[in-house]
């Protein structure tokens, strides 16, 4: 085994391959939302966060490659693990694309007014709304509210009195006066603004207990033809 001193200083090296891949997938989704939001709102701050995340994915990609190569012992390993690396590098490619997008902010504003107008017409729209003083959402965390499960809207960024938080964690508390930037359908956004403005009381989702866990493999059996599943 290699001397641990030689690689323990690598970023994210303590994570498992599965954790690394999950993190890369999540980050590659957030970074694209943020990039479009940066273009829509002409935000240098968001662009900076995009560049930061792009560097993070570079490091994650390096770590996953390192760990995967270490774990490959046989030809069969090499075959299966190369699929895994291809997915990781797809996430990396997506983050590069997002970083290229925000580079457009360096061009003079008058050259790109159509971009936000165009993004406004997208299937999944990025919009902003404010939590009003009457809103029953105020005082609860994003996780407790289950905002995405209840409205289909995902919070990309939140501006509180302390400043901006990008891709806020479930533990972040929503307060009256906060501005949130979300991604979701028109219908979901309209519903969210009702709650945010305090015109409708928030309905907390029921947290299911002892949920039966199905593995993707079990689920796949219902759509894949039998000969493929039996393999």
């Amino acid at each position, binding site marked *: 085994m290699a001397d641990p001193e030689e690689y323990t200083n690598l970023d994210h090296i303590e994570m498992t391959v599965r954790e690394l891949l999950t993190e890369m997938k999540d980050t590659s989704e957030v970074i694209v939302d943020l990039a479009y939001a940066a273009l829509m709102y002409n935000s240098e701050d968001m662009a900076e966060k995009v560049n930061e995340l792009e560097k993070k994915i570079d490091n994650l990609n390096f770590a996953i490659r390192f760990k995967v190569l270490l774990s490959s012992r046989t030809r069969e390993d090499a075959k299966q693990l190369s699929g895994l690396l291809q997915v990781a590098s797809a996430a990396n490619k997506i983050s590069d694309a997002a970083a290229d997008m925000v580079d457009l902010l360096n061009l003079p504003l008058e050259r790109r007014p159509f971009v936000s107008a165009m993004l406004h017409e997208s299937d999944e729209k990025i919009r902003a709304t404010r939590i009003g003083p009457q809103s029953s959402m105020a005082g609860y965390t994003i996780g407790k509210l289950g905002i995405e499960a209840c*409205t289909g809207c995902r919070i990309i960024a939140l501006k509180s009195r302390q400043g901006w938080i990008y891709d806020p964690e479930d533990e972040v508390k929503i307060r009256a006066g906060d501005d949130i930037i979300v991604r979701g359908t028109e219908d979901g956004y309209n519903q969210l603004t009702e709650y945010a403005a305090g015109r409708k009381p928030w309905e907390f989702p029921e947290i299911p207990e002892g949920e039966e866990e199905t593995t993707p493999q079990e689920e*796949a059996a219902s759509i894949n033809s039998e000969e493929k599943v039996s393999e």
Partner: protein
Amino acid sequence: MNRLEEMLLEMKDTSEFMLDLAYSSLIYNNEEIAEEVMFMAESMEDLYSRIQELAVEIGTSKPEEVARIVVAVRLQASIKSIADAAKSIADVVLRGLGKHPVLAMSIKESETTISLAKVAESSVLNGKTFAETRLSTQCGMFVIAIKRNREYIFGPGKGPTVRAGDILIANGPEEGVSYFRGLADGTEKDLSL
């Protein structure tokens, strides 16, 4: 919106849909869904060249538009890269390299997960159109494909009516999954919220 913007927007929406489908093909190691990603990649190629041609056309006839066109062309290159990434994820499945359990688990565990649900006879969704169900607003789950008998309907959007026996493939937050499954199997009747 002018034609260039419409095409650019179509590219953007398609690239996002391709990525959702690509991850679905990967989590279920499903070649039919992966094939659809490849099929959509071809229409992306086509859109990409049409946008380029139109950009040149506008640029030559209206030089004052060139600065704006540059933005559109650069944006479409980024969007195309995202579509290419989706394609290379689907390629893993088509090459038969999608079996590693870590692949499926990493998607299962991610913030936006993918889930299946079969529509029961007694389901409140049975007989409703997707517009009527407002599924994504109800539980955050967005149906990206339906498997009906042996056929797939990709991107059902607001179109078809849900039928008993349909298998819905949806993506969304982990918290929305059990409600989504309950609606489909008939145990959850509350579609009003």
